[in-house]
């Protein structure tokens, strides 16, 4: 039985369709993410699960039980809020104990103390009980919010952009901690984020949303390898899109005529709909699939597609270098490991270069 299920859920705010006919099921004990730009409906989806919003149509089920008419305070879910929403008038202990104190039968004092200590230990904040929320660092507040939610042993833990207020380093640590925690406690985590890296690295499943609808629901590698369309491909990683129209279709591949008349061929995405001849499409090429070498040299390996241009800029990304190439195809991003032979010191801006890729490493996608 899925832990959380949406069946044709609609939620409108005036003319805005925040959630527009969404259905999905999240596997019990999994780590799921809603990914999308702001206004895509991911936060509203989370609030529909929490009970802060009620669907205009459709059903929200938690652990198989319909939540229609069940107020937030009777739902077996807990939330970690974007800015933590810790109670400023209560100390850490009272914040963490808040949920348990509302349950009946109310736990005994000793039981309460034990459970709070346990929860604080779980988030590595043992001994912080008498601190005030505002005396803690962002990361610590984040962990108090987690403890405050987890102590209730909810069926589902909801996380609303929980890491957005943290700096990069802390964010990485917390991502790791969250994953570990989820494995340890074994309950379903549902994360809302606009950070694709976060979603892909932590989740068992990801729902990519756009304008109140789920564009694609799947495991991170499915989304990366087999995006349904240009939108998903663009969201799960940096990609070069070459737009045109389908001029030829075979079973699993398509040829696309670009606006400048070139025809490029690429396999269809496994997750995408079959493209029809005449349909708008893009050829998507990941920067890391593009090879690049100095203009006068021969291709290091034979490639299906080869073009010319010149380096516009180069950016070091730690272990990789990213080049922007201006040329036949307009502006193209290419990325190569620093150790690669082709990345030489003479590939500086304004250097004439050639570049190309294997058709198999590109994808033909619907241009939506």
């Amino acid at each position: 039985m899925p832990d959380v299920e949406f069946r044709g859920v609609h939620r409108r705010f005036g003319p805005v369709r925040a959630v527009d006919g969404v259905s999905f099921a999240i596997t019990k004990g999994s780590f799921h993410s809603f990914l999308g730009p702001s206004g895509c409906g991911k936060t509203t989806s989370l609030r529909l699960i929490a009970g802060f919003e009620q669907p205009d149509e459709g059903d929200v089920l938690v652990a198989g039980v319909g939540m229609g008419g069940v107020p937030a305070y009777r739902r077996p879910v807990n939330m970690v809020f974007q800015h933590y929403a810790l109670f400023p008038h209560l100390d850490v202990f009272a914040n963490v104990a808040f949920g348990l104190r509302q349950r009946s039968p109310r736990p005994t004092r000793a039981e309460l103390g034990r459970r709070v200590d346990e929860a604080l230990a779980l988030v590595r904040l043992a001994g912080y009980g008498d601190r005030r929320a505002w005396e803690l660092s962002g990361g610590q507040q984040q962990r108090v919010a987690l403890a405050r939610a987890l102590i209730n042993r909810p069926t589902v833990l909801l996380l609303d952009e929980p890491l957005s207020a943290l700096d990069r380093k802390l964010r990485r640590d917390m991502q790791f901690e969250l994953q570990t925690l989820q494995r340890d406690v074994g309950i379903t985590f549902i994360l809302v984020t606009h950070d694709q890296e976060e979603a892909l690295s932590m989740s068992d499943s990801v729902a990519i949303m756009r304008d109140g609808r789920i564009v694609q629901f799947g495991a991170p590698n499915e989304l990366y390898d087999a995006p349904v369309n240009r939108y998903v491909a663009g969201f799960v990683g940096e990609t070069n899109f070459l737009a045109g129209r389908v001029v030829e279709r075979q079973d699993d591949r398509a040829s696309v005529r670009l606006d400048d008349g070139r025809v490029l061929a690429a396999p269809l995405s496994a997750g995408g709909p079959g493209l029809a001849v005449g349909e708008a499409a893009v050829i998507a090429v990941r920067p890391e699939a593009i090879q690049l070498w100095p203009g006068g040299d021969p291709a290091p390996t034979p490639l299906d597609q080869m073009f010319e241009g010149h380096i516009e800029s180069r950016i070091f990304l730690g272990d990789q270098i990213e080049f922007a190439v201006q040329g036949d195809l307009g502006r193209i991003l290419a990325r190569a490991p620093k150790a690669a032979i082709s990345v030489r010191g003479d590939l500086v801006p304004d250097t004439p270069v050639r570049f190309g890729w294997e058709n198999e490493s590109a994808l033909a996608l619907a241009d939506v």
Partner: protein
Amino acid sequence: MKRAGPGRRRAIVTALLLAPSTLWFVALLVMPLVVVLVFSLGERAPAGGYQAGFTFANYLNLPARLTAFTNTLTLAPVGTLLCLVFAYPLAYFLAVKVKRAKLMLLVLVILPFWTSFLLRTYAWIILLSGKGIPSWLAVVGIEGVRLINTPTAVLIGIVYGYLPLMVFPIYVSLERLDKRLLEAAADLYADPIATFRRVTLPLSLPGVVTGCLLVFILLMGEYLIPQLLGGGKVFFIGNALVDLFLQSRNWPFGSAVAIALVVIMIVAVGLATRWAKHQGATREVSLL
């Protein structure tokens, strides 16, 4: 000596900067109080007013106004409490529930302040008199209700007149309240009542305390409402003072009553502040 130079100059600058506010404080607060204190030890001149003297007779005579003191010390706290009871839901509604037209509703709350207080209270005289509310009650079978010239009428007038003073501080503290905290409480199984009791109310305490102090302090000196709606039968310290200064012109005794009022107020406000600070210390809410 060289090092003392800048320090002394700084001290002089500080003193000069503080001078206006110190003067202000002395001129507006200390001096009048000293005058009142001196008067309270004097004697009534034969034709009324003040005549120099040194006697505690005025203070010993204070029990002659005992009823005024007890009336004030019961009706002022009760009035404050009633204001709170009526103001809180209103402030809550304005701050939390109202989305649109908030400004307009806020203006409506203070709108009565744009007309004369006397005129408004006079309207209440008409409403509370026999041909007003009691006559409407009689229509639905509740006969013989008397409102005007009773403590109830005075309390109605107090709630009416002082409500905005209570509404606004509470409104501000509720407005500042992070609405996500209410969702957080609901998320943690607190039903609306528990959410109010454990989150909303404690976090709005600063406004409640401010409002209560404001209303209570002003009520302690109130005289117009008891005069108009109490028909001279509900007598506050303020009425005693008005009579002593404006009718019998017994300035020394009036000064003694005024000093007694100030002392009572200092004690009452001191206790309230202490309680609020205590609450603040235990709940970590800055109350004052």
